């Protein structure tokens, strides 16, 4: 009997819930005394009354029962937005008549006095539902979403073919485009699931997003450090999708609604070994880095493709909407830099780099402040694009196959027809680090040691960088030619002269060097080598393994000294 008595009591208690099923009654929007949330009225039993009235509504539709808050809102703005959000109107201003926190929740038109709430609550309590009057850190609303907006943006769905769940109101995006105040099936009153950013994807159709790692990676958080997904309940990169980086409301990085204001924090919260397998954060802690920590709020997504104001952020090199782990071979841009911006070999801006070096040229092709070499050279050139140009008398083969068809020192698989990446020399010194020039213990973010000081004792370790491709034995022990004996061996081993004394590894611009004097990357280090009489300081190419030099070095004078 006791159990049936209890059953009856339960019937009485929950009858309204059963009879209405999935209904507003079961949601936090039931502000009546029967509501399931903590914010609710002390005695008022009507549910609809907090928003609706059958008579004397204002505004008329949807029979609204609340005052216009009468606020002026701070609107979302961004350097890359094409939409024009206005002051909240339509349904959005109705939502804000509670959620901006300025009007008491119980202050309805149809009641002479304000409906009393539990715990002395009047206006919207602090928390995620308190949007406030500053909408600059919230997804914009009250803007027209039409064909011309979709065309101008280029990555928005055709508004005529939106998923039926996403409703525009008089052609505008409003709070109700994403939220249904009456139904809370997916959490946060969303009209579709946020898992895998399904809802976001109904409007935002980012090019190449489907194959991006941020959309597909099943990686999970190892539990160390701060929670990278602090505003969702999802447990993998793929499930969090857009929300790996973006926060639709109260985003700390208001412009572009990023989780964090500090640019790199959005990336390094996962790329620190706690989610992504590669630890970029540790690479960036090395002495020589692309130092993303040094710059704050300088990067702008709308900036020119040739960077003008010196800075570097992760997103200068990586496009988080497109990047993936697809491998490529030089000079083609691989997955990690897919969709990055750059400058092509002719100096023209490129929206999506085809070749990896184009990405480097964003900054290293004449941008103010880009670092030069510490070595003073006979020919100075700080524009890397000009150093690697295929018309140059010599260059390392980055943009294309090199000039020299006879390079016997090359180690398999390298041949005279090989092309290499900038990142074959400039990258982390640790092979277990993620690829790319994030950080190294060696200056210029070089992958291996590369001594440039005069009187350096030759060793594999001292010229480890060069010896990756150029066989050490072939360089210093080939005595079969005069060149091998009297040039390389004599200078490197006999005179302790580093490679950089004679060779400028990037290349010599065709506008400065000549095919007679600057083949074989010859561009003397003038702190070691100086001119002889009449100011003559030159190398003269006289064919394969033949040439002569006019110079003064280590107290010796060549005027000229030949080899053949």
């Amino acid at each position: 009997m006791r159990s049936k008595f209890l059953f009856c009591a339960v019937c009485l208690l929950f009858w309204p819930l059963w009879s209405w099923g999935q209904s507003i009654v079961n949601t936090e929007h039931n502000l009546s005394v029967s509501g399931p949330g903590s914010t609710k009225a002390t005695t008022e039993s009507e549910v609809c009354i907090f928003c609706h009235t059958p008579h004397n509504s204002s505004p008329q539709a949807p029979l609204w029962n609340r005052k216009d808050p009468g606020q002026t809102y701070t609107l979302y703005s961004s350097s890359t937005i094409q939409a024009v959000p206005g002051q909240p109107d339509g349904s959005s201003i109705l939502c804000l008549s509670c959620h901006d926190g300025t009007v008491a929740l119980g202050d309805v038109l149809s009641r002479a006095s304000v409906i009393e709430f539990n715990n002395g609550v009047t206006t919207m309590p602090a928390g995620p539902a308190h949007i406030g009057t500053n909408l600059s850190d919230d997804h914009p609303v009250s803007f027209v979403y039409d064909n011309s907006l979709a065309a101008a943006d280029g990555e928005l769905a055709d508004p005529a073919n939106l998923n039926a769940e996403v409703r525009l109101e008089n052609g505008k995006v409003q709070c109700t485009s994403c939220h249904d105040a009456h139904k809370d099936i997916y959490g946060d009153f969303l009209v579709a699931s946020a898992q895998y950013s399904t809802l976001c994807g109904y409007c935002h159709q980012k090019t190449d997003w489907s194959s991006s790692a941020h959309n597909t990676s099943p990686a999970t958080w190892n539990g160390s450090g701060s929670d990278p997904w602090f505003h969702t309940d999802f447990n993998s990169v793929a499930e969090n999708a857009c929300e790996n980086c973006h926060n639709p409301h109260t985003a700390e990085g208001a412009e572009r609604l990023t989780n964090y204001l500090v640019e790199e924090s959005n990336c390094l919260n996962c790329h620190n070994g706690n989610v992504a397998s590669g630890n970029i954060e540790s690479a960036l802690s090395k002495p020589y880095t692309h130092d993303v920590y040094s710059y704050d709020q300088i990067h702008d997504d709308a900036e020119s493709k040739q960077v003008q104001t010196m800075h570097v952020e992760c997103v200068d090199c990586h496009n988080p909407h497109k990047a993936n782990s697809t491998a490529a071979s030089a000079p083609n841009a691989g997955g990690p830099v897919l969709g990055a911006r750059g400058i092509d070999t002719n100096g023209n801006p490129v929206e999506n780099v085809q070749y990896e070096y184009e990405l480097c040229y964003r900054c290293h092709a004449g941008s103010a402040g880009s670092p030069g070499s510490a070595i003073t050279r006979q020919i100075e050139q700080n524009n890397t694009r000009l150093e690697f140009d295929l018309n140059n008398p010599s260059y390392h083969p980055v943009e294309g196959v090199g000039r020299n068809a006879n390079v016997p020192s090359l180690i398999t698989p390298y041949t005279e027809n090989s092309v290499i990446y900038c990142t074959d020399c400039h990258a982390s010194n640790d092979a277990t680090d993620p690829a790319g020039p994030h950080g190294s213990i060696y200056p210029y973010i070089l992958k291996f040691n590369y001594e440039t000081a005069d009187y350096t004792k030759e060793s594999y370790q001292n010229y480890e960088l060069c010896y990756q491709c150029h066989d050490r034995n072939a360089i210093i022990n080939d005595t079969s030619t005069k060149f091998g004996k009297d040039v390389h061996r004599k200078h490197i081993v006999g005179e302790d002269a580093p490679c950089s004394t004679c060779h400028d590894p990037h290349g010599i611009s065709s506008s400065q060097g000549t095919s007679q004097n600057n083949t074989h990357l010859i561009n003397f280090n003038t702190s070691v080598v100086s001119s002889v009489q009449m100011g003559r300081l030159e190398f003269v190419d006289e064919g394969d393994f033949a040439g002569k030099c006019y110079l003064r070095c280590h107290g010796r004078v060549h005027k000229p000294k030949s080899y053949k």
Partner: protein
Amino acid sequence: MRKLYILTFAMTFFAATTVLGQISGSAHDFSNENWNSSGEICIVCHTPHNADVTVTDAPLWNHEVTTATFTLYSSATLDAAVGQPDGSSKLCLSCHDGTVAVDNFGGRTNGNEFVSGDELIGTDLSDDHPVSFVYDATLASTDGGLYDPTTTNSGLGGTIDDDLLIGNKVQCASCHDVHNGSGVADLLRKSNAQSAFCLTCHNK
């Protein structure tokens, strides 16, 4: 024990519908008004003979009928086709629109008692729940947030269509019982505690 079980269910389902009321003493009882010299209750609206038949299905009508053109409710999300008030709604508005005097009945046209305050709906119906529209299974299906009136229980014994609609239409009388049959405040047909009346039709 079994009786307790049944009784509890009975209480649950009929508690809201068993309270009865009557027009006598209600807001629509004008028998004591000084402008109603007859002292009758029904006469303000009804007459047994020579009734006004200009409004279709008007129940032996004895009151001047409004000729106003009304501003209708509209909304971007409204699927119902709302027309000018017709049927019994037009009769209600013959007092509540404020254009016809309450004491213009029985052929009188020069009355000067007009509704005011909360009872005055006016001719602008744009801030009022719409009336005089067909509410059928098709509308319910189109809207998605309405119950099918032909199969959904009204809580008054039959379906919504049976108990609350007049000729398939929502009218003032769908929510209000002019004769105060249920004795609920605002002459509602049934209690709106927990918004139960709203949620009879609205599937929110």
